[in-house]
């Protein structure tokens, strides 16, 4: 790992494509992260918060009825049971603790639908660190409850009125804030994206998922699974569960959002399947696959799952896809919805629409035998946040 941190790249992907003013902050962060990542005191404290605050380990649940329906033995990694309702807190707890160790006094973050922002607010409150979250003004209206949740936990939500008033504008604004306040402020990125060391650091913090799965599946099956399936937006829940298995004979499927079809126009994509259909580019500080037009302008992506709705993807995933170690695939909105209903009805588990994309892929792929006999699906979050969306679709179809 030390090895890896020294390099800022995964093959040709990754790097640090940021304004000069941020470079020293990235260097400092890299240095500090390197200092603490294997520090026993830091890790003991992080483990403590993961266990007592976040509720880890999350179970690995053998979904008998879903297995029967889909025709393959399915285990669900229950990140939906983590405090806050998603895997997001694994990362924000790690970064918040690092913020404290670095002696910084303030956390900033960007958020789209509000999941990462909520996880930041939780971690910020738990550690008593001032937290400010940038959020597109449009998103603050669409996701009113998440705004309220953050505010309840003492975070300040700053509506961003520039541009399209959505996630990408929030990212831009958060970066600007960081540029202006690097000395006191840690910028908390919510996925394995952005400039080095974020993709490595966020992956490491999320790897607790895969590490638990290793022990749990050994306990239950006496062997590793044939396949692991995870939805992929930025890619943090995917890298979190994949990473500990990279060196093993386990197939890794990264399921992206197929949206309403794999088409793009000059300005927008009907999907968010960056690994499947993106091209090499540089976005938000890293060289990676990007949804872009022929000139390199970034496209508006689209998905029924707000958390997958992003035009980039983590550089390590782009690298692993290129070398064939992970298999990019995708599920469409309608397929994700059907899988969502399956899991609710058959198992009494309401998954996030993001996670439903992974379930939907297993539904499609099980028959061909390509998944093998034993599959682990990462249920990256719970779906309570998505009820309005699902209800809306149901009404539309009436």
């Amino acid at each position, binding site marked *: 790992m030390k090895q890896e941190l020294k390099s800022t790249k995964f093959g040709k992907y990754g790097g640090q494509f940021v304004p000069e*003013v941020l470079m020293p902050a990235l260097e400092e962060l890299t240095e500090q992260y390197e200092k603490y990542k294997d520090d026993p005191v830091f890790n003991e404290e992080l483990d403590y918060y993961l266990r007592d605050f976040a509720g880890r380990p999350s179970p690995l649940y053998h979904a008998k009825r879903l297995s029967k329906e889909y025709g393959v033995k399915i285990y669900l990694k229950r990140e939906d049971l983590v405090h806050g309702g998603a895997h997001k807190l694994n990362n924000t707890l790690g970064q918040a603790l690092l913020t404290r160790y670095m002696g910084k006094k303030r956390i900033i973050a960007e958020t789209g639908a509000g999941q990462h922002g909520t996880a930041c607010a939780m971690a910020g409150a738990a550690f008593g660190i001032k937290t400010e979250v940038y959020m597109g003004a449009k998103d603050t209206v669409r996701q009113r409850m998440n705004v309220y949740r953050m505010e309840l936990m003492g975070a300040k939500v700053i509506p961003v009125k520039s541009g399209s008033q959505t996630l990408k504008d929030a990212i831009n604004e958060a970066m600007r804030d960081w540029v202006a306040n690097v000395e006191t402020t840690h910028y908390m990125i919510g996925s394995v994206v952005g400039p080095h060391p974020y993709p490595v650091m966020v992956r490491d913090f999320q790897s607790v998922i895969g590490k638990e799965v290793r022990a749990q599946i050994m306990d239950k099956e006496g062997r590793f699974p044939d396949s692991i399936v995870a939805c992929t937006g930025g890619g943090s829940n995917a890298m979190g569960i994949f990473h500990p298995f990279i060196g093993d004979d386990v197939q890794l499927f990264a399921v992206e959002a197929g949206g309403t079809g794999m088409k793009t126009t000059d300005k927008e994509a009907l999907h968010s399947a960056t690994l499947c259909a993106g091209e090499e580019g540089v976005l938000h500080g890293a060289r990676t696959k990007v949804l872009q037009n022929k000139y390199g302008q970034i496209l508006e992506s689209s998905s029924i799952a707000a958390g997958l709705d992003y035009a980039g993807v983590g550089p390590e995933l782009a690298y692993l896809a290129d070398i064939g170690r992970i298999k990019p695939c995708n599920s469409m909105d309608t397929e994700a919805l059907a899988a969502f209903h399956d899991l609710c009805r058959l198992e009494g588990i309401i998954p996030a629409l993001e996670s439903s994309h992974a379930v939907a892929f297993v539904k499609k792929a099980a028959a061909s035998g390509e998944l093998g006999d034993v599959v682990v699906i990462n249920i990256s979050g719970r779906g309570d946040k998505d009820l309005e969306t699902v209800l809306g679709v149901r009404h539309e179809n009436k």
Partner: protein
Amino acid sequence: MKISEKFNELKNKKEGALIAYICAGDPTPEATKEYVTALVRGGADIIELGLPFSDPVADGPTIQAGIERALNAGMTPDTYFKTVGSLKVHIPLVVMTYYNLIFKRGLPKFVKDCAASGISGIIVPDLPAEESVELAGFCKKYDIDLIFLVAPTTTESRMERILVRRTGFIYLVARLGVTGARADIAGSTRELIERVKTTTPKAVGFGISNGKQAADIIRAGADGVIVGSAFVDIIANGKDAAGKLEALAKELKDGIRAAHG
């Protein structure tokens, strides 16, 4: 015209440089031609012409709005080079854009297009020295300057790394933060100018909007002043933009001249 020639010419006149930024295509390619002429008439020594990118993380709201207007009006890299190629000005032109547009066009083609359309320098705010080796190679080949930024946060070791690669001029970021007109000039500017030990010209940008500030910057030891948001603000307002651009350029240039007086 090469950037170094311009600075030499100004040095001989004991004058600081006024480097003016506007975004190409804001609000139309035609207007850009008119505005560039106005800026030159007002006294601009170098024009930095933004090539608009959809996700301009290093720019403040003012310039971001200009970029959006340009994009909505259909500005593309193709149109950009055509527009620049047709400009009839006899001062150095610099393209300012984000790395993805360069990357997507292909580094050699982008640099070649710059050369062909009369561009003398390239500024890429999201391309730090570490990632610039490849682009620098092509710039050298086509004799185009690749201009780097240094900031108050830049450490000594980074400073060295940057100065090794410097061409054209050094872009000093006057204060932490992003582009945007502000009322005062940070005390850290003088300190930063002193820290950048090189004979290559130093131009200071970020937050300069009037002649008095421009004069202060030059007095602090800078070789040039970079002004962007204040010009873009005028364009955003619309009414008699060309006249006002010329007037502001004149005020700034007068300030710069006064500093040496």
